[in-house]
C-alpha cells in the first residue's frame, strides 16, 4: 500500500481527476439530475441588489472575462442578464477585456433574443463594446463615458442611442454589475469607481474562484454582493430561476442550469482532492514513523 502510493506515477492522479470530472458530466448530462443548492448570504445580497431596483433603472454590466474563464463566469453572465431583463432594467453592456464583446453577444443571444425578444436594442439594452486601457478606462468613465465610448459596439455614435441620453458617466448608473476573471476587473472597479464615489456607485460582482478571496476584504462596504466561482453561480442561478420558473411551476431550461449542473463534477473532484491530500499525508506519516525507527 505505502510503497504503491510512494512511487505512484502522477499520471494515475491525472487519470483519476479526468474520470472524476468526466463521469459526472456524462451522467448528469444524460439524466439531467444534479445536486440541490443552498444559497449563502452573499448570493442573497447580490440577488437583492438587483431585486431592489425599479423597472427602468440603469444597470451597467461590465463583462471583463474571456473564454478561458467562461466555464465559471458564463453561467453568472447568463443569470445576471436574465435577472436584469426580467426586472425590466435598462442594461448597458461594456467590456474591459478584448474578447469581452463576444461574451456580451453570447449573453444577448442566449438570454435576451431567446426569452425577451421584445426588448429593443438601444432602448432597453446597448452594447458599448470593448475599450482598452483597463483601469484607465474605469477612471475616465466614472466621470465621462463619451471621452472613451464615442460609439457603441456597432459603431453608432454614443448620443444617437436613445437610452444613452440619460447617462453621462458611471455615476448615473443605479447599479454596476461586474463579471471579472482578473485584472482589469472587480478589484479595479472597487479601487477606481467605488472608492472615489462611494455614494454614487454601487457595485456587485461575480468572479472566478481565484479572485474571490482577494475580494472579501472589500465586503460589504465597497462590495455589497459577490458571487464566488461556479458555486456562487449555482447559488445565484437557483435564486433567479426559482423566482421566474420553479415558483411559477415551470421547468428551468437546460441553458439556465449550467452552474448547478457543473456543481456535480465539482463535488466529485473536490472529494478526490481531499482523498489525495489524505493519501499524501499518509505517506508522509509512514515515512516519519520509519524515519524514527
Amino acid at each position, binding site marked *: 500500500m505505502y510503497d504503491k502510493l510512494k512511487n505512484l506515477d502522477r499520471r494515475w492522479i491525472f487519470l483519476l481527476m479526468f474520470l472524476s470530472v468526466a463521469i459526472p458530466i456524462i451522467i448528469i448530462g444524460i439524466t439531467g439530475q444534479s445536486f440541490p443548492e443552498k444559497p449563502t448570504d452573499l448570493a442573497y445580497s447580490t440577488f437583492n441588489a438587483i431585486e431592489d431596483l425599479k423597472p427602468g433603472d440603469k444597470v451597467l454590466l461590465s463583462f471583463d472575462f474571456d473564454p478561458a474563464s467562461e466555464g465559471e463566469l458564463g453561467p453568472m453572465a447568463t443569470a445576471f442578464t436574465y435577472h436584469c431583463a426580467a426586472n425590466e432594467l435598462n442594461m448597458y453592456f461594456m467590456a474591459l477585456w478584448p474578447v469581452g464583446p463576444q461574451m456580451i453577444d453570447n449573453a444577448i443571444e442566449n438570454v435576451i433574443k431567446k426569452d425577451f425578444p421584445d426588448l429593443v436594442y438601444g432602448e432597453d439594452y446597448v452594447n458599448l463594446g470593448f475599450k482598452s486601457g483597463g483601469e484607465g478606462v474605469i477612471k475616465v468613465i466614472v466621470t465621462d463615458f463619451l471621452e472613451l465610448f464615442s460609439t457603441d459596439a456597432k459603431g453608432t455614435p454614443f448620443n444617437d442611442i436613445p437610452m444613452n441620453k440619460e447617462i453621462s458617466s458611471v455615476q448615473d448608473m443605479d447599479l454596476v454589475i461586474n463579471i471579472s476573471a482578473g485584472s482589469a476587473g472587480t478589484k479595479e472597479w472597487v479601487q477606481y469607481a467605488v472608492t472615489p464615489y462611494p455614494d454614487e456607485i454601487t457595485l456587485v460582482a461575480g468572479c472566478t474562484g481565484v479572485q474571490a478571496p482577494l475580494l472579501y476584504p472589500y465586503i460589504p462596504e465597497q462590495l455589497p454582493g459577490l458571487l464566488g466561482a461556479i458555486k456562487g453561480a449555482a447559488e445565484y442561478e437557483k435564486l433567479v430561476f426559482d423566482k421566474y420558473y420553479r415558483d411559477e411551476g415551470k421547468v428551468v431550461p437546460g441553458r439556465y442550469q449550467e452552474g448547478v449542473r457543473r456543481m456535480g463534477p465539482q463535488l466529485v*473532484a473536490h472529494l478526490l482532492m481531499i482523498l489525495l491530500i489524505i493519501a499524501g499525508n499518509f505517506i508522509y506519516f509512514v515515512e516519519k514513523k520509519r524515519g524514527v525507527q
Partner: protein
Amino acid sequence: MDRQKLIWTVVFAVGALGLIINALTRDAGSAYVKSVDHEFALVEKGKWVDVESDDALDFDLEGKERIRWSSEEQATYRDYQQSKQAKSDESKYSFSLSMTFGIWVAAMFTLFIMSFLFKDNPFYKFAESVVVGVSAAYWMVVGFWDVIIPNLFGKLSPSFISNWAMPGLSGEADFWYLVPLVLGIMLLWRLAPSGTWISRWPLAFIIGTTAGIRLMGFIHADFLSQIRNSIIPLAVFENGSFLFWDSFLNLVLIIGVLTAIVYFFFSIEHKGVVGKTARVGIWFLMVTFGAAFGYTVMGRIALLAIRLEFLFDDWLWIIDPAMNRIAGI
C-alpha cells in the same frame, strides 16, 4: 514495430474508426448556420438606407444603386431539422463545412494539449507551435485595430480615420498624441543598426510614469482603504444589546491584521515577543492561503468541466444539456 507502438496504433485506429462511425451515423460534430441578407440602397448622395428599414419608405428605391451581402449566424441542429421538416423551399438554415471542420480542429487541439499530461509528444509540440503563432498575431491585430487606429491615429487625425476605418468617429485632432508616436519611434530604433540606446528613453518614460501612477494609486486605494476598512468597533451592539459573536470576530480580524503586518517587519529579527507575534501572523497568512487554494481548485475544475462538455456536447454529441439538437424547452 515494437509492442508499445503496436498497441498505440491499434488504440488510435479504433478511436478514429469510432469517431467516423459516430460522425456518419449521428452527424456528430456537424455545425449549422442561418444566413442573413443585408441590402442597402443609395437614396441620396452619401446616404444609404437598409431597404427593409422604416426610413426606406421615405424614398423611391427604383433603380437606386444597391449594396448586398449575406452574413451567417450560428444555428442549432434543431433549427436545421425543423426548417427541413417545414419543407420551406428557400430555407435560411444550412450545413456549414467551415464550422464543422472548425469543431473537429478545436476538438483535436484540445486532445493534443491534454496529451502532454501523458508525456511530451509531436502532437503537443504542434499545438504549442500553433498557439504561439496564432495568439501572438491575434494580440497584434487587436492592438492595431483597438489601440493604434482609434487611440493614436484616431486622435492625431480623426478626419483621416473617419474616412475609412471608423466612420462614426468625430472630434478635434489632439496633438499631445505626438508624444507616444515619437516615443514609439524611439522604441523601434532598436531595429536600427546603431544608436539603439535611444530606445531607453521611452522605457524610462514608461517606468517613471508607471512608478508615479502606482505610488499614488496603491497608497490611496489599497493602503488607506484597507486601514479604513479595518477600523471597526471591538464591541458590536444591535439596538442596545451586545452581540458577543460579532464582537469576537471583529477582535480576531484586528489581531490577524496586526500580527500579519508584524510578520512583514524587516527591521527586527523574528525573535522573542516579535517572533511569537509574527508566528501568529504567519498562521493567519496560512489560513488565507488555504482559503485561496480551496477557491482556486473550484475554478480549475470548472474549467476542465467546460472543456470536457465541449468534447461530449459539441463534438461527440453524447450529452445535450442546452437542448440544441433534440426538441425541447
